[in-house]
């Protein structure tokens, strides 16, 4: 925290968002501001004091996490400006970060970082898949390393790839996809990319709201959102058509039945007359 603000001077909504950011359970919604101030003082200010006084201890603990933290900043510890910059790096254009919007942007950044982690793991898996059989022993060692630390160094993977001539097609494919990326002496510098939707081992996990779509697609999606889907419409249409057909057939049947019935009556009348005539004779 760059500077400590007096909790009593903050707005209630700001206190709430701070509490949520520090994973503190919120009191009931109708509580007075004093309750929030108390909680804020209890949890957050204590935390700050602990941070300031036990820096050395924290550093020892943080060293292990440093390789991760260097790439993955914790959203709740960032300043507003840092949060904005990190979101911009991930392709999101954030609005003003205020008390009410901060929590939402922190959550968004958290989701993006998680998806980053998943992407990196997928890329590592992909690299392993493409590795040559001769290099299997080396790969097994690498696998163990990957298992222990969650963040495999992408440059190491590319080093391995570039050192093998049979890997040329893969490398060229990468270069085609990333023509603007800077090339290191060892190979290609792989940067974060959006996952290819539905590709093998890269199922769609997060749909970004700002992925490039044409305006027509956006319009169509918005309209489709509150109209009944097309399949249901077709189904209902077929059902209605069947019902109408059945009604039509029934009407036809009853018509023909009655006309048939009339004919039978006439025939019966004739035969009765014949009987009567016969009887009279």
């Amino acid at each position, binding site marked *: 925290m760059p500077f400590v603000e007096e909790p009593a001077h903050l707005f209630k*909504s700001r206190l709430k968002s701070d509490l949520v950011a520090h994973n503190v359970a919120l009191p009931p*919604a*109708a509580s007075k501001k004093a309750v929030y101030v108390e909680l804020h003082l209890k949890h957050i200010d204590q935390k700050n004091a602990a941070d300031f006084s036990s820096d050395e201890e924290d550093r020892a603990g943080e060293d292990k996490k440093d390789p991760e933290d260097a790439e993955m900043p914790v959203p709740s510890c960032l300043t507003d400006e840092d949060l904005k910059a990190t979101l911009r790096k991930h392709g999101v*254009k*954030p*609005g*003003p970060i*205020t008390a*009410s*919007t901060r*929590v*939402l942007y922190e*959550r*968004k950044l958290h989701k993006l970082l998680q998806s980053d982690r998943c992407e990196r793991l997928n890329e590592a898996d992909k690299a392993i898949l493409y590795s040559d059989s001769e290099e299997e022993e080396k790969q097994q060692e690498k696998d163990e390393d990957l298992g222990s630390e969650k963040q495999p160094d992408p440059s190491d993977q590319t080093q391995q790839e570039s050192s093998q001539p049979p890997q040329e097609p893969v490398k060229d494919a990468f270069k085609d996809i990333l023509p603007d990326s800077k090339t290191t002496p060892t190979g290609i510098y792989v940067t974060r990319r959006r996952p290819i939707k539905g590709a093998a081992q890269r199922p769609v996990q997060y749909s970004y*709201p700002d992925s490039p779509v044409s305006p027509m697609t956006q319009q169509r999606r918005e309209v489709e*959102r*509150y*109209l*009944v889907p097309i399949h249901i*419409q077709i189904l*209902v*249409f077929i*059902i*209605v058509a069947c*019902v*109408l057909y059945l*009604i*039509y057939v*029934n*009407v036809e049947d*009853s*018509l023909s039945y*009655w*006309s048939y019935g009339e004919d039978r009556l006439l025939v019966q009348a004739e035969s009765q007359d014949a009987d009567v005539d016969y009887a009279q004779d």
Partner: protein
Amino acid sequence: MIRTRSRRVGEGLVCVCVCVCVPAVRMSTTSQKHRDFVGEPMADKPVTALSGIGETLGKKLEENGFDKAYVVLGQFLLLRKDTEMFTDWLKDSIGANSRQASSCAQCLKEWCDAFL
């Protein structure tokens, strides 16, 4: 005589089916409240005028300081008119469910498209 009666029954059934099925197929989910809000500038309307916001949610919004519809509009604009983030915020701050939150977001978005 019998012929015409059954024909009339058949025609009646057909009419009933058509009247029931055609509107069902052309369903849309904009309510009257939605149409009322989106149809004119919101001026000083209370938060309960927003589609999806009833008495309970309206009270909770007022507790949080959002006593008029234009204040909620302000929050929507702060989030750059992003309906997803706005629905998250609504669910978070007042405990709205998905349907209510998305209804309110859609209502505001259409209002912005029409008047902003």
